[in-house]
């Protein structure tokens, strides 16, 4: 186990007959010993190229990667002391599951009895004890993925790299295995980096998440940071389910008082509210066009008290009861908001509903650059 540093790392792919592609652009990350890191983004964002550069399956075009204090740019994959679970599983078909898992332990001269104990332990954790004697081709995709994970996690390595480690896990096992794997990584202080297209997975497992888009690291922070202080529109829209409500708005001034005029998708005014007259609200200057965002579960149904809450009234156009919670679709003018409410909330179709939009939960993004200009929580800071 060791720290892992990416120092201004870039990856350029040059293929004959194709224009060169800069897949990873100047990415820097400093990962602490024992930290669990998720690399997320849509396909083609550079997350897998980044992982493969750490593993040693891709050359590093520019920059340096270090494990501990040791630069690894020039080391072969096998010399880096990293363990990797592949998205395509890459199991040895002629070996039983147990031998697949034990393979690298035995190659590193671990005594057979000790290797068997380790295999038994990881097999129990991943619920594959009953298939240890089978051969990989007879397994389902979900089982093969668990074997591939077991083979990586059972090893002793400085860094663990996991490519889409849980994409095929059976739904009834996913919640439990996610939690067990997270606990195992923490208990064994394993520095790990996993790639996933599913932000839900990253939020569940990671201490910190690196959000990538078009080869650029958009934000690197804890799940709470990403949810509460997204650095731009991309991160705001990518992280969180249901996704953040984002509405176009423009600041107008009436004398000293500023108002935020919120619009629907077609640019018609839907509702408006006052901008607090505070120094922190300076970025919301007269005439500025922004997107205002609020996460669906931060909207308060039937708000009480006074607090720093903007109240708006809308029409319930849809309501979903999902067992453990309810989702509402609410129209205010022609603007549409998704609201997550408690499972006990009953909101009939076409009924009027008053919603509270707490200032601390609002986010403002520049409408041209998409960069965050203000998080509502800063407005309330004394």
């Amino acid at each position, binding site marked *: 186990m060791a720290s892992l540093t990416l120092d201004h790392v870039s990856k350029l792919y040059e293929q004959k007959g194709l224009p060169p592609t800069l897949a990873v652009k100047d990415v820097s990350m400093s990962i602490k010993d024992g930290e669990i890191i998720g690399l997320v983004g849509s396909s083609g964002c550079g997350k897998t190229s980044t992982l493969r550069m750490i593993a040693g399956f891709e050359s590093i075009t520019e920059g340096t990667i270090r494990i501990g204090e040791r630069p690894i740019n020039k080391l072969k994959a096998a010399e880096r002391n990293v363990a990797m679970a592949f998205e395509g599983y890459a199991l040895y078909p002629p070996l039983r599951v147990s031998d697949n898992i034990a393979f690298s332990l035995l190659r590193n001269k671990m005594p057979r009895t000790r290797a068997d104990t380790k295999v038994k332990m990881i097999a129990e954790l991943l619920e594959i004890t009953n298939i240890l004697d089978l051969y990989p081709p007879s397994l389902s995709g979900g089982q093969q993925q668990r074997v591939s994970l077991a083979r990586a996690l059972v090893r002793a390595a400085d860094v663990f790299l996991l490519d889409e480690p849980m994409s095929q896990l059976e*739904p*009834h096992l*996913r*919640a*439990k295995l*996610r*939690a*067990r794997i*997270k*606990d195992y990584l*923490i208990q064994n202080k394993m520095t790990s980096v996993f790639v996933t297209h599913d932000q*839900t997975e990253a*939020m*569940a*497992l990671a*201490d910190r998440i690196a959000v990538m888009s078009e080869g650029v690291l958009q934000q690197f922070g*804890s*799940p*709470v940071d990403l949810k509460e202080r997204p650095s731009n529109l991309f991160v705001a*829209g990518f992280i*969180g*389910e*249901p*996704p953040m409500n984002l509405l176009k708005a423009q600041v107008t001034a009436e004398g000293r008082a500023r108002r935020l005029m919120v619009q629907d*998708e*077609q640019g018609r005014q839907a509702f408006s509210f006052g901008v607090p007259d505070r120094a922190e609200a300076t970025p919301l200057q007269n005439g500025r066009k922004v997107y205002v965002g609020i*996460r*669906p*579960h931060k909207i308060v149904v039937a708000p009480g008290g006074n607090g720093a809450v903007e109240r708006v009234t809308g029409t319930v*156009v*849809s309501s*979903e*009861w*999902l*067992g*453990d*919670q309810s*989702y*509402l*679709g609410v129209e205010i003018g*022609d603007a*549409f908001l*998704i609201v*997550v409410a*408690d*499972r006990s909330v009953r909101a009939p*179709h076409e009924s009027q509903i008053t919603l509270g939009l707490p200032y601390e939960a609002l986010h403002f993004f520049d409408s041209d650059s998409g960069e965050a200009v203000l998080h509502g929580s800063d407005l309330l800071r004394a």
Partner: protein
Amino acid sequence: MAYLEVKSASKSFGKKRVLEGLSLEVERGECVVVFGPSGCGKTTLLRLIAGVLEPDQGEVWIDGKSVMGVAPEARGVAMAFQNFALYPHMDAFENIASPLRARKLPEDEVKQRVHEIAGLLRIDHVLDHLPRQLSNGQKQRTSLARSLVHGPSVLMLDDPLRNVDAKIRYEMRLELPRVFRKFHSTVLYVTQDYKEALALGNRIGVLMDGRFEQVDSPVGIYRNPKNQRVASLFGDPPINLFPIRPERGSDGVVHAQIGGQRLALGTRSAELAGRECILGVRPEDVAFDFEPAPGGIPVELEAVTPFNVRTVTLLKAGDDTEILASRPEDNILATARGHRRGWARIDFDRALFFDAASGIRL
């Protein structure tokens, strides 16, 4: 009489029996979701109703008449698939209008109908755009508008939200019920996503091995599943299942050992004494606390895995029983790392009991 009736339909492909005497009744204006794992026969059922396939046995009735032998296009059934394909050379208006043009409706009526549905689906401002100028969400809405515009007798949607991104999926999930209501559509909606099933169905048919295991309202399916299999398909994280053998104590109260603790099972458990059971507890009905509480099971907090807007915890009792608990998002708990002692309390008023052998709810 129901508007759409499937009467004991069976269908085999070669030796493989896909539908096994399946029956279903859908009322006019109702949305029934057909929910089940892949390969359970969902798509075959839709094809029988559309008339693309004929059943080996059984019949399909629409509006009081058998449609056996009636050609697909004469059944008035519209079907839309996972990949809503649009005509690339036609603008959104013409795409939506195409079923009306095929029926040679007067121009005024075409315009009026297209604008009405486009307004409802919030695409009235992009009607002059070509498909390539539309966002993915607008494409989705355009193709939905096209399948609804001529007022089909039965609208069948085969997993339409499967390949769209999260934002569009959530928006459409909330908007579709309103669209169905406005058009009084009779809808069969196929999905593998239990949330879509709960959100969209007036009723849900849980299809397994070619038969409906249960057909009921969303609340009925979630709160009163017919058996353990149905219970396990709805909910994420899934329902906790604990094998128990309830016993009546000397005080007359029915107890069971759960997580190494002897717990009273609540008022509904009188007839369970002496019977091998499976106790089903949904994660949202397990309360976790760092303070001891009466009726609490001492547990170790193994891991915290935030899940969307909820916080999921894996708890381990003294006898190694694992318990999943879920509650509204909690940033303090979410950043907790490492083990802590706590107490888990089960809400027995919401608990489910299944027969250990048959899996049937007691």
